């Protein structure tokens, strides 16, 4: 009898092609928008997370405000932190702004960052050409520079910058490397930055203390313990004034960022789900019209011995078929839309099976929920009234 019901439902859908298609459209749009939105948001989340992780999921970021007596960390403080068990290395940053000159090209207010070898070791993809800063540079306070992609373009248009001499704050530096161009959502772009050994920077930028320090963890699960240890060192250095510094665990920041993004995707999915409900009401409306049109048929079927259940089944199957077909078509459109939008925005898109199952399952549920009321109405029709209506 189920087979028979399916056959009869299909026949009816075929007979009312245009009407069925328009009704399905509501579900198609609903499912397509759910899939496209969730997929795009997930893609964007992954992209941003990757960027943030690139900045260091295994990184503890120490920012020193200082006290009137002691403005920042000394090299000795940095070495103490570096020697902790769970610390793979520390990378201090000393920042200043100054003028950079190559031959007749002058760039003003360029960000100069003093870094060490750990910074380059933590992310091997940083360099585009040349070499990184090494321990020798730091020990001998060599005057070498690694320059960002915009600086390359503005100072060395058409020239290979490696080995060229530039003047930073009045002193001659050799360019030993160039940085890869950072794109997209990248936080902390280094395209306009010149990096020099931090020991050199301490000397030439007129800064005596280290104000920011990145500590790289060996084991991120031990992060909390290591932070306690770092606090111990900093408390000694700043005479137990906890306002003198801030410690951020990048892992925590990534976690909270990801939870915000997953909330976003649920919110957007929820909004799209509303359109699916609207589509469901469309189906219900069409089913009700169809029942009114087919009153005689329902009456006849009842006279021939159709049970209320058989009548209900026929209409529910019709409604499920409409919504499920709409769901599958919507799935296809949604995936296509996600890829197109992803390509336009520049977000990597990955279609997750769970999202697809969710959308298709949801559309089938819509079919059952919104088909039930009309189907029940049909099954309760009095056969006499139904036969008389002709």
């Amino acid at each position: 009898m189920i087979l028979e019901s399916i056959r009869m439902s299909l026949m009816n859908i075929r007979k009312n092609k245009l009407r069925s298609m328009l009704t399905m459209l509501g579900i198609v749009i609903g499912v397509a928008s759910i899939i496209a939105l969730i997929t795009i948001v997930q893609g964007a989340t992954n992209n941003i997370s990757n960027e943030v992780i690139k900045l260091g999921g295994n990184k503890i970021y120490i920012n020193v405000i200082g006290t009137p007596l002691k403005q920042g960390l000394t090299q000795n403080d940095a070495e103490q932190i570096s020697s902790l068990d769970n610390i793979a290395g520390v990378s201090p940053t000393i920042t200043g702004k100054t003028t950079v000159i190559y031959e007749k090209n002058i760039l003003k207010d360029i960000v100069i960052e003093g870094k060490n070898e750990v910074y380059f070791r933590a992310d091997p993809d940083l360099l585009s050409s040349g070499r990184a800063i090494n321990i020798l540079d730091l020990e001998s306070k060599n005057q070498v520079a690694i320059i960002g992609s915009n600086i390359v373009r503005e100072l060395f248009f058409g020239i290979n910058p490696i080995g060229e001499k530039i003047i930073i704050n009045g002193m001659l530096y050799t360019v030993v490397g160039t940085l890869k161009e950072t794109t997209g959502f990248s936080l902390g772009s280094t395209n306009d930055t010149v990096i020099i050994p931090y020991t050199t920077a301490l000397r030439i930028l007129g800064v005596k203390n280290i104000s920011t320090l990145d500590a790289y963890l060996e084991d991120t699960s031990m992060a909390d313990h290591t932070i306690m240890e770092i606090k111990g060192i900093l408390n000694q250095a700043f005479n137990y004034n906890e306002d003198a510094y801030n410690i951020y665990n990048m892992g925590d920041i990534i976690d909270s960022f990801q939870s915000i993004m997953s909330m976003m995707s649920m919110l957007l999915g929820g909004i799209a789900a509303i359109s699916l409900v609207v589509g469901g009401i469309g189906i219900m409306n069409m089913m009700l019209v169809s029942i009114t049109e087919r009153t005689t048929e329902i009456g006849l079927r009842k006279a021939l011995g159709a049970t209320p259940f058989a009548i209900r089944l026929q209409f529910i199957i019709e409604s499920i078929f409409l919504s499920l077909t709409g769901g599958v078509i919507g799935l296809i459109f949604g995936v296509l839309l996600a890829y197109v939008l992803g390509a336009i925005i520049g977000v990597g898109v990955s279609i997750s099976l769970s999202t697809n199952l969710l959308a298709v399952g949801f559309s089938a549920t819509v079919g059952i929920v919104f088909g039930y009321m009309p189907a029940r109405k049909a099954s309760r029709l009095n056969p006499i009234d139904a036969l008389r209506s002709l």
Partner: protein
Amino acid sequence: MSGIVNMKNICKSYYLGDEEVKVLKNVNLTVNKGEFISILGPSGSGKTTLMNIIGCLDIPTSGDYILCGNDISELNELELARIRNKEIGFVFQSFFLLPRLTAVQNVELPLVYSNIPQKERRKKAKEMLFRVGLSDKINNLPNQLSGGQQQRVAIARALVTEPSIILADEPTGALDQKTGAGIIEYFEKLNEEGKTIIIITHDINVAGHAHRTVNILDGKLTEGTGLNDP
């Protein structure tokens, strides 16, 4: 209580607003197996209501109705559907064939609801169409058939479940004289084969073909002239 249909003091009333309209008043009717009976009455006499009650499409307000040993007042909707499917073959004035189904699919329809497998269904339906002389029209849609042919498809549909009663409501009402006479002849033939037939009609000529006629007027049943002369 030997008959297939046993009706005792059947009353049926409707409410039009606050006013009670008594459509059937203390109807007593017994139909025995193998009988060919006509229920004759003008429109508004309550004959359609009586047919609906006989056909278990409606239940009486009061009175006892035993159909093939089943007390109708005790059955729920599901059981009524089963009884209609098994015991009653309906033939309607306007045929009520489903327009999108072929002749054989229309005949199969009641078998669908008695859960008979597709193959057997098709076989029985074909046999039945052969018996009503339409074996060459099996795959025709109703609109490709004449009125008489459509009514014969409807009769095949009524017969296919081998019901206890064929219940025909103005079966010739939508047909011309000659075709109508053919259909009535066919009912006579079925009766000779042992089928129990009840025809509801306002046409005295049609009623005359039955072996027994009961008259219905203003909801009251009176026994007619008894045995009609063939």
